[in-house]
C-alpha cells in the first residue's frame, strides 16, 4: 500500500503541468473558470494544440496516432487538465467512436475516420437516445432498411449533445425486429449533410441549446458506413459505453468546483463575517469535501486496477453515482453561496463577447445556470437509477 505516485508518474505529472502552463490560452482557461459556453472554434483551437503535441487521444494506441497512455497516466492528465481549467476534450469522436472503430471498424474506416478525428476534420455526435429509448436504450426504433448498397434510415434521435456543431453522427438503428430487442441493432456512421436529416435545438433549463433532436426522413447511408456486422450493433454500443464511463467520477471537476466554492464562501459575508465561517455552511462544505477525499481514492483504486489490465465493471457504476452526487452537491452549495445574486438570469453571461459587466459579483454570474445544467449528470450516460440497478444485480445475483 503506497498512496504516493511513482517517480515516473510524478515526472509525467510535471511534464503535463508545464505543458499546460505554457500552451493553454488564458482566454480559454478564463471561460472555463467562469462557466462560459465554449464555441465550436474554442474547442477546435484547443484540440489542435493538444494534437500538435500528440496528447489529444490519450486513450488511443500509438499505432492509431494516440498517446497510448495507461489508466494512471490518463488520470494524471485529466487531473492536470481540470486544475489548469483547460476545456474538456469533446468526447464523441475521441473517447467514444475512436475505440469502437479501432476494435470493430474495417481497415478502410480506420484509415479514413481516425486521422480526421485527430485533425478536427470531423465533429462527431452521438445518435443513441430516442424519445422512447432512454434508460431502456435497447428499445431504439429508428429503422435502417436495406436498399441495394444503401440503408434507408427513418426515425428520430434526441438529447444529441452539441449536434449543432457536428458533421457526422454515429447511430444505433434497428435493422431487424426478430428476437430480443438487443439482437436487431446495427451501428451506422451517417453524414449529417445527407438529404433528409433535420436538426432541431432543445433549450435546456439553463437557457442554453446544448442538446438537439435529430430527425431522419429517408436518409440514404452507404452500406460501407456500417461498423462491424449487421445486427451486432448492441455489442459495439456497450463497448462504447464502457469508454464513455472513463473519468466518470469527475474527480477533477469536483476538485475545481470545491475550490471555487470555497473562494466564493470566503468572499461572501453573512451576518458580518465571511460565509465560510458560518458553522452550518462550513459543515456542508466539510461533508462534501470528506466525501470527495474518499471518492478520489476509490477512483484511484479503480484506475490502478485498470492500469494493471482489469477492466472496471460495477465499479464504474459506483463511481458514477457517488461522483455525480458530489458534483451536484458542490453545484447546489455554490448556488446557495451567492445568495440573492443567484436570481438574475444571465443568458448573455454564458456567451462570449457580452459588453455588460455582471449584475453582481463575477463569481455569481453562472452559479445558477451551472447548478441547473448539471442536474443532467445523474440523468445522462445511464441514469443513476440504471447504475444502481447494475450494482444491485451484480451483488444480489437474483
Amino acid at each position, binding site marked *: 500500500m503506497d498512496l504516493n505516485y511513482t517517480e515516473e508518474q510524478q515526472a509525467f505529472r510535471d511534464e503535463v503541468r508545464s505543458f499546460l502552463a505554457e500552451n493553454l490560452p488564458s482566454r480559454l482557461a478564463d471561460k472555463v473558470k467562469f462557466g462560459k459556453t465554449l464555441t465550436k472554434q474554442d474547442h477546435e483551437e484547443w484540440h489542435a494544440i493538444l494534437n500538435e503535441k500528440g496528447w489529444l487521444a490519450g486513450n488511443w494506441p500509438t499505432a492509431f496516432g494516440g498517446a497510448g497512455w495507461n489508466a494512471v497516466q490518463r488520470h494524471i492528465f485529466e487531473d492536470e487538465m481540470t486544475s489548469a481549467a483547460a476545456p474538456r476534450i469533446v468526447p464523441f469522436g475521441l473517447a467514444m467512436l475512436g475505440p469502437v472503430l479501432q476494435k470493430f471498424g474495417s481497415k478502410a474506416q480506420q484509415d479514413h475516420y481516425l486521422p480526421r478525428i485527430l485533425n478536427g476534420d470531423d465533429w462527431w455526435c452521438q445518435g443513441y*437516445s430516442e424519445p*422512447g429509448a*432512454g*434508460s*431502456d436504450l435497447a*428499445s431504439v426504433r429508428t429503422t435502417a432498411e436495406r436498399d441495394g448498397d444503401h440503408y434507408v434510415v427513418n426515425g428520430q434521435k*434526441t*438529447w444529441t449533445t452539441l449536434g449543432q456543431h457536428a458533421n457526422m453522427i454515429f447511430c444505433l438503428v434497428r435493422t431487424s425486429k426478430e428476437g430480443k430487442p438487443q439482437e436487431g441493432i446495427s451501428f451506422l456512421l451517417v453524414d449529417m449533410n445527407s438529404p433528409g436529416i433535420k436538426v432541431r435545438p*432543445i*433549450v*435546456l*433549463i439553463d*437557457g442554453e441549446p446544448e*442538446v438537439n433532436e435529430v430527425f431522419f426522413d429517408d436518409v440514404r447511408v452507404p452500406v460501407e458506413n456500417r461498423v462491424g456486422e449487421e445486427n451486432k450493433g448492441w455489442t459495439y454500443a456497450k463497448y462504447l459505453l464502457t469508454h464513455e464511463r472513463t473519468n466518470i467520477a469527475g474527480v477533477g471537476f469536483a476538485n475545481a468546483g470545491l475550490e471555487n466554492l470555497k473562494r466564493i464562501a470566503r468572499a*461572501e*459575508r*453573512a*451576518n*458580518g463575517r465571511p*460565509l465560510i465561517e*458560518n458553522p*452550518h*455552511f462550513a459543515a*456542508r462544505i466539510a461533508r462534501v469535501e470528506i466525501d470527495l477525499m474518499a471518492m478520489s481514492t476509490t477512483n484511484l483504486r479503480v484506475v490502478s486496477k485498470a492500469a494493471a489490465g482489469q477492466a472496471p465493471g460495477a465499479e464504474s457504476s459506483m463511481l458514477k453515482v457517488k461522483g455525480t452526487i458530489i458534483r*451536484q452537491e458542490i453545484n*447546489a452549495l455554490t*448556488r*446557495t453561496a451567492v*445568495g*440573492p*445574486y*443567484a*436570481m*438574475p*438570469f*444571465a*443568458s448573455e453571461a454564458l456567451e462570449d463577447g457580452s459588453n455588460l459587466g455582471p*449584475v*453582481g*459579483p463575477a463569481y455569481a454570474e453562472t452559479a*445558477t445556470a451551472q*447548478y*441547473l445544467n448539471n*442536474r*443532467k449528470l*445523474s*440523468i*445522462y450516460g445511464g*441514469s*443513476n*437509477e440504471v447504475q*444502481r*440497478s447494475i450494482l444491485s444485480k451484480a451483488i444480489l445475483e437474483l
Partner: protein
Amino acid sequence: MNFELTEERQMLQDGLRRFLRESYTPTLRAELAQQDAGFSRSIWSGLAEMGVIGALFDEDDGGFAGAGFDISVVFEELGRVGAVDPLIDTALLGGGLIAALGNDTQKQNVEGVIDGSIQLALAHGEPASRFDLSHVESTATGDGDGFVLNGRKAVVINAPAADHILVSARTSGDVADQDGISLFLVPTSTPGMTLRGYALVSGGEAAEILLDDVRLDRAALLGGEGSAFEAISRVQARATLAISAEALGLMESIRELTTDYLRTRKQFGKPIGKFQALQHRMADVLIEIEQARSAVINLAGHIDAPADIRDKHVSATKNLIGNVAKLVAEESIQMHGGIGMTEEYELGHLAKRLIMVDHRFGDAIYHLERFIALAVA
C-alpha cells in the same frame, strides 16, 4: 381545531384557481418574456377586479381581509400555475409598508395598489447585505428641508415596472444597526436614481439601483426618521409566508406532473412508476410536501403574533420550505429524466421558480441559524 377554509376563503380559492387556469395558457410564458414588465398587465387587472389584491389588506387599509390564511390561500394558487405576477412586491412589501407607515397623502397609493393601477418595489437589500435585514449602507443625509440619498440597492424585484420605489437608507447609526433606517417613497423617474433592469431565472424582472445624489423633499419620508426597521421586519414576515405558500403551490403542481409522468412514461415495457425504486422516492416527496403544507399553516396562524413568536415561525417555515423545495425540484427533474431538463416542458419553469424561493427572504441555512437564536438557544 378546524383546518377547513372559511366560506369566504373557499370562494376566493375557487375563483382564483379558475381565473389563473384560464389566464396562464401554455403559450403565455413565452409571450411574457417578450414584454417589458415581465408579467401580464391584463392578468394584473383581472386579479385586482377579482379582489385578490384587496384580500391582502385589512379593512382599515381599504382591503377586506389581510390575515395570514388569506395570504396563504392566494399565494398557493399563484404557485400552482407558476405565476410571475409581482403581488409580493407591489402589495405585501410596497403596499404593506405604505399602509403601515404612510400619512394620509401617501396612503392614497394603497388605493391604487388595490385597484391595480400602481406598481411598487421595495429597494432594501444591498450588494453586501445578503439576507441581513438591518444591513443598510446606503445613506440619506439632511439637505435643507429634504434628503440626499446615495448608495446601491441589489436585486430589486419588480423595479423596472414600478411607478414608485420604496428605498431604505440610513439616516443614523452603524451599518448593521436596526435603529437609524429610514424609508423613502421615490417616484421611479427621480433624477439621480438609475436602474439596470434584467430578467430573473424564476420569470419576472428586477433591477440593480444606483443612488447618486438623489434629492428628495421631506414629504418623501415614509414614517418616522430612522425607525423603519420594525415595519420592514413585519412586511418581510408576511412576504415570507407568501413565498412559502407559493412554494407549496409549485410543489403541488410539480407533484401532479411527476405522478402523471410515472404513470404514463414506459421503459422496459412498463410504466416507470411500477419500479419500486421510483415509487419509494415519490412517496418521500409526498411526505415532505405534507410537511411543507403544515409548515405554511403554522406560519399563517402566527403571522400576527408578537414579533418573537412570529419570527420563530417565520424561520421554522422558511427553513423547512427551503429544504423541501430543493428535494421536490431535484427529485421531480430526476424522475422525469431528460424531458425534465428542457425549457419547453412545464416542469422546467415550475422547478426553477421553486429552487429560487430559497434565494429570497433568507435561505434554509440563514433561517436555521436564526431559529437556533430565537428558539433553541
